């Protein structure tokens, strides 16, 4: 009797555990299916394509020929360099402007509720519409910027900012920062509001200046958010497509062609799917390595600053 009782109970428990596990699988299966169809399968298909010379006409297996050609092409390495420069500059500006903006919005200034709302438009309006607005402003014939520069006598002739290589690149950066900053600002603001007021008051009683409090309290306290935003912002900026495409389509003469634009041009515009897929795979690998490094770094930062 005892033997049966002892044996039966664990068996029942095991059955129940099994059914609980089955239920868990059941619950995540829709999401899993979704991910398999829209993420895993396209990724696998892209990797397969990258080893072919696929065009609209058909495809043949070519081994690593696409990669070999890519790595041998000096223009590809220029694009890689330009992409990282684009990313580093745009992300740094977003973080700096966001930090300054959040500090101002967090300060006790009159009408700050209104300013908090005014920060939102670049983020809220569709990117395409905002960027078309910028394209008009950059225009040499009827653009606001050129007009103002001439009005104030700063330039003699009209300035078409998107027409020369250097000015086009930095104009695209400005627009990208304009689009990307509000979210960074709001995340920083939320983090700043989470810092205990007592910390500032204690520092104030001890005679710490505003700048000292910002440096020694605010920055360390929101550091985990700064690092997280840097990572997210870096990935988005790296992959930023529509801003550049609408402004310049990667031109003039490739001055604003980043990896993602290059990939689109090769794969979609030129319909060289195999070569495009190879570029896409390189992007995935670069971003994966970059993300791993960042996650490791974030973990360190959290351990350093996060101990509450």
């Amino acid at each position: 009797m005892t033997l049966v009782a002892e044996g039966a109970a664990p068996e029942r428990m095991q059955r129940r555990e099994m059914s609980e596990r089955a239920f868990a699988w059941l619950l995540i299966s829709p999401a899993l299916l979704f991910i398999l169809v829209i993420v895993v399968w396209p990724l696998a298909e892209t990797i397969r394509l990258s080893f072919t010379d696929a065009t609209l006409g058909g495809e043949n297996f070519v081994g690593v020929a696409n990669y070999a050609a890519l790595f041998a092409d000096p223009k590809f390495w220029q694009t890689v360099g330009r992409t990282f420069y684009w990313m580093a500059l745009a992300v740094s500006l977003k973080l700096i402007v966001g930090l300054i903006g959040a500090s101002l919005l967090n300060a006790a200034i009159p009408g700050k509720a209104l300013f908090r709302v005014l920060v939102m438009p670049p983020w809220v309006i569709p990117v395409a519409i905002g960027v078309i607005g910028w394209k008009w402003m950059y225009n040499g014939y009827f653009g606001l910027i050129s007009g103002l520069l001439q009005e104030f006598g700063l330039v003699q002739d009209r300035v078409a900012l998107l027409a020369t290589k250097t000015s086009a690149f930095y104009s695209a950066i400005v627009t990208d920062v304009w689009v990307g900053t509000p979210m960074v600002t709001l995340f920083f603001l939320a983090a700043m509001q989470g810092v205990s007021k007592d910390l500032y008051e204690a520092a104030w009683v001890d005679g710490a200046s505003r700048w000292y409090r910002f440096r020694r309290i605010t920055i360390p306290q929101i550091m985990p958010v700064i690092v997280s935003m840097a990572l997210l912002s870096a990935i988005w900026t790296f992959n930023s497509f529509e801003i550049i495409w609408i402004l310049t389509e990667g031109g003039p003469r490739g001055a604003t062609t980043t990896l993602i634009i290059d990939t689109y041009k090769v794969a979609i515009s030129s319909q060289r799917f195999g070569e495009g897929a190879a570029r896409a795979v390189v992007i995935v690998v670069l971003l994966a390595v970059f993300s791993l490094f960042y996650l490791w770094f974030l973990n360190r930062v959290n351990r350093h600053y996060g101990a509450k």
Partner: protein
Amino acid sequence: MATLDLQSITKSFGSAQVLSGIDLAIRDKEFVVFVGPSGCGKSTLLRIIAGLEASTSGRILIDGVDVSAAAPVDRGIAMVFQSYALYPHLSVYENIAFPLRVARLPEPEVKQKVGRAADILQLTEKLPLKPGQLSGGQRQRVAIGRSIVRNPKVFLFDEPLSNLDAALRGEMRVELSALQRDLDATMVYVTHDQIEAMTMAHRIVVLNKGRIEQFGTPMELYHHPATRFVATFIGQPNMNLLPATVVGTGPEGLTVELHGGTRMTLPVDTATARAGDSVEVGIRPESLQLGTGVTMHLRVLERLGGTAIAYGQMADGLKLCAALPGDTTVHEGEDVGLTFAPADAHVFDANGRVMRRRQAPALAA
């Protein structure tokens, strides 16, 4: 160390008057506790002293110097916050050193001062740790350490023990009292806990609705509460208040009739009393003894060992509490007769002002 004088301090937030006409003279090396219910303005008053909040009017003098317009750091005060306000990303050492770093003291001096504070507060072994690795009591000590290193003229404490558990609170009370003596410091301490006030203070300020109800030593407040509010706020369990009517006055004192018809002559100053006035007779639970006088239906008896606290109500529904000897033989559910010595009674007029007791215990100067 220093004296601290508050002159006619008022504070309003918009139309809400939080503090009105606060006058206080705190002596050198004195430990003064502000006590009162939440919302009485005690924390606001402390923040005004610290300079974290501006008073609407009035002056603050530290060592005779008007600091009303000075920045907190220039007032010579240090403040310990209820939340401790420790910097989570800095080590205990750097937390204590923070004010010294702000003042750009040279490293050897920082090291020496932090070392001394850590020594006093028994934190030496904890210096490399982060606040998150410390217990509540240790965090509190770090916060105190940060205030010590500045050698302030006046220490300000804003409910520093309210985040600690009861046992630790008891320990820290003793430590703080000892620290105050060791540092010979002027300290102002805010709490809502009258036990903290009674046990630590040289003198207590009882605040209610933005006004000072009374400023005096713990024993003055206990034996000579100026108002009904102070009488019920100070002392645990709370003082009983029995409604009564004045029957007459005489050289012996005030003769009153309690509800239920008991007449007593109480030895208090009777200058303002007239026959027929409604008054309240205040009697502390520890002044009640078994006997004949008032009858209480005993509902709950809490045996604490040394004493037994009896809770019940009188025939007219009035609640009553008595602290009886620990070995008392009364039982819950019984009617118990209670009596008290007339000299132990406090009498409050209809406005809550006390009629001064003539035979209260002598008070130390």
